[in-house]
């Protein structure tokens, strides 16, 4: 075994370390500052989960014995993100569960279950706030949500979409949900809201596909132009899969927002329910950015070796936030490319990257029935 009992890190110490993070500027650390800090945190989290989550401890046993503690950041075990769909992984006593997040699951079959304790949930909000404010400023501004408030009818069952909206709505005021329950645009309400608030900045939040389908497509089909004002900012996320199917690029998406809604500031984010909070936001130059408390590693899909900058590969995401569940180092099934570090034209430090899509599914496989072949 490569982690011993001596490594047990008190969760209190861990939280203290996390709280030392610079919340004012989430993009302040250069590689040389960030690496020792992140490596220490990642090793602490790995030890913590190893000692407190049996499933995670079992998982790390597949890695070679020569992997020794403390680990280089590249050698921190990376848990496949799908594991949260197949296993209940929690590193605290069950009585600490404060809320459980569920992913919507693209296949519709299995959903991720992410158990949060109150402290982890609070930290996620804090970090999300620090990142978001870096893009929309500190003031709470009028907010349009490209969704329906019907989503919240049943508060007991919040899906990832509803949780995302709740997470971001704290950054706005005078919230206006601009879609009805069938996701049709509430045109009159929208125009009224815009007339009232367009002189100042408006914060718009929505899921990428819904923004495309319900806002942009409405404007295109009905040949109308909306005026969201000069200072409006759209933040959107949730994945490009449906838009890729329709062959819509990020560039076209932004162009359409500019032409039909007059929205000039658009930020996509890359994030997942398994790592809420430390999202990767797109800057003014079109690159997604790693904040101080998160990191991204691109791996060769054939052997998971670390790839240099400018090579496309599988995305591994690391986040300092997951304490209640072992989600601090996850291997996604998304493909992406890191373009550089600390030198993006926008001035933010840290790695910057783009996401190019999902890995194709292996043939012969279904999620539920993995051994279908007959002979």
């Amino acid at each position, binding site marked *: 075994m490569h982690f011993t009992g001596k490594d047990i890190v008190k969760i209190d110490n861990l939280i203290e370390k996390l709280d030392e993070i610079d919340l004012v500027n989430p993009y302040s650390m250069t590689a040389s500052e960030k690496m020792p800090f992140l490596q220490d945190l990642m090793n602490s989290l790995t030890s913590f989960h190893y000692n407190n989550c049996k*499933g*995670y401890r*079992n*998982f790390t*046993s*597949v*890695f*070679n*014995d020569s992997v020794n503690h403390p680990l280089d950041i590249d050698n921190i075990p990376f*848990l*496949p993100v*799908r*594991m949260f769909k*197949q*296993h209940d*992984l929690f590193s605290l006593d069950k009585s600490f569960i404060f809320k459980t997040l569920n992913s919507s699951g693209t296949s519709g079959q299995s959903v991720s279950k992410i158990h949060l304790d109150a402290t982890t949930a609070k930290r996620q909000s804090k970090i999300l706030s620090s990142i978001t404010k870096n893009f929309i400023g500190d003031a709470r501004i009028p907010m349009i949500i490209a969704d329906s408030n019907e989503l919240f009818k049943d508060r007991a069952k919040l899906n990832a979409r509803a949780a995302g909206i709740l997470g971001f709505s704290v950054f706005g005021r005078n919230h206006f949900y601009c879609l009805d329950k069938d996701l049709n645009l509430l045109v009159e309400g929208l125009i009224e809201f815009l007339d009232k608030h367009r002189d100042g900045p408006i914060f718009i939040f929505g899921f990428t596909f819904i923004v495309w389908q319900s806002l942009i497509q409405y404007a295109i089909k009905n040949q109308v132009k909306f005026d969201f004002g000069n200072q409006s900012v759209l933040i959107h996320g949730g994945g490009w899969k449906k838009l890729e199917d329709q062959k819509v690029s990020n560039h076209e998406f932004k162009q359409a927002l500019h032409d039909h809604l007059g929205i000039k500031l658009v930020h996509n984010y890359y994030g997942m329910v398994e790592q809420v909070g430390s999202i990767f936001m797109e800057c003014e130059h079109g690159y997604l950015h790693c904040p101080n408390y998160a990191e991204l590693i691109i791996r060769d*899909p*054939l*052997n*998971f070796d670390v790839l240099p900058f400018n090579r496309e590969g*599988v995305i591994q995401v690391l986040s300092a936030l997951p304490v209640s569940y072992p989600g601090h180092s996850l*291997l996604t*099934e998304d493909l992406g490319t890191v373009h550089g570090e600390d030198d993006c034209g926008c001035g933010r430090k840290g790695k910057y990257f783009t996401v190019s899509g999902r*890995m*194709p*599914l*292996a*043939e*012969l*496989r279904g999620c539920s*029935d*993995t*051994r*279908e*072949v*007959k*002979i």
Partner: protein
Amino acid sequence: MSVSILFAHEKVASVEDAIDYLESCSIWNIFDKRAVSFINKFSSLLLKYPAINQYPDLVALAYWFRRANIHKLEQNYINDKDVFRVGRGVSLHIAPSNVDTIFVYSFFLSLLAGNSSFIRVSQKSSPQLDIVIQLFQDLYDSGETETAGRFVICTYPHEDTTTEIVSKLCELRIIWGGDKTVSNITAIPLNPTALEIKFPNRISFSAINLSTLTKTTDKELIRLCENFYADIQLFGQQACSSPLALYFVGSSGPCEQSERFWNFFAAAAKNHKLSASEVMDRYVSLSSMAISGIVDKAEVPFSHDKVLILNGSLTTQISFRDGHPGNGSIVQFFLPQLADLSSHIRPKDQTLSIYGFSLGEVGELLASLTNRGLDRVVPIGQALEFSNIWDGYDLIDSMSRKIDVSKIK
């Protein structure tokens, strides 16, 4: 109905035509000369097919149905004077989606048993299926219309009513598929006189006698490892007969001989290749098995050009059978003696491929089994070789009908 007919007699243009035509085909005696001749011709055409060597499963198919083998098979059934053997009538075949050619085995045996056949193949096309259908068409065009007219190959969505219609009138229904597919189709009412043969999900593994291995020369071991790798590699280790685990018998833990085996095996598996998606799938399944405590330690958990060797735990309630990744992963176990294997056999277990055990030792193991597990014991290297005895059925015997004439002198 959204049925596309891939191969049929020229008079058949619809499912209705197909049913009418198949019902009008008379029942044949078993091993009717016309059926034997058709299969012989198919086998030799397939062996001569350009680039056939790209498809080891087709080579195996052609080889299995070679003239000499069919002749040998026939001898098992024609010398019984107490029964007269004939076909049952129309047989319905539901082919599996992932092993493209397996349905040809059960369909040809049904043809040899004297039946006509309605075959539903997967909606997914494959080069192997295209080749098989092309050859049927060539045989038909060359004048083999009588035998080639005895079967229809088509494809349609599982929810289509065609299976229901054919099930009502067929005399034999053969289902290959995952457990879910088998259950779904079994639920469709069947002609009361019909017989049903089901091939659901099964699990297979291997066992090696370590004390025999000490006497195995390097040359023999090279051959053994090549055979073992061939069993793993075919169908991406995802066929029911693909070995998923290896029991080393004669030691309670890794030893000199097991290490020697893996060293030679690494050389046999040196051309192993997976796609990026397969690497990911294997890693995901491996991680899941590790979390459940089924396996630990993988020397190189990721690389696309390596077969993964995992240490299995015999103590856990969950077994390697659940969520095994295939794609080149072997769970190794150690057992002091072969008799110890008995308590690890589960009802869904199918093929045990072995090295270094005598028939007597195998017999002792089989005599000690306590559930329906194990339907085949074969040498390593023959795990995926088809047999007319499959999943506990003698297929010619089951697919034909025996008319009792024992009291007639």
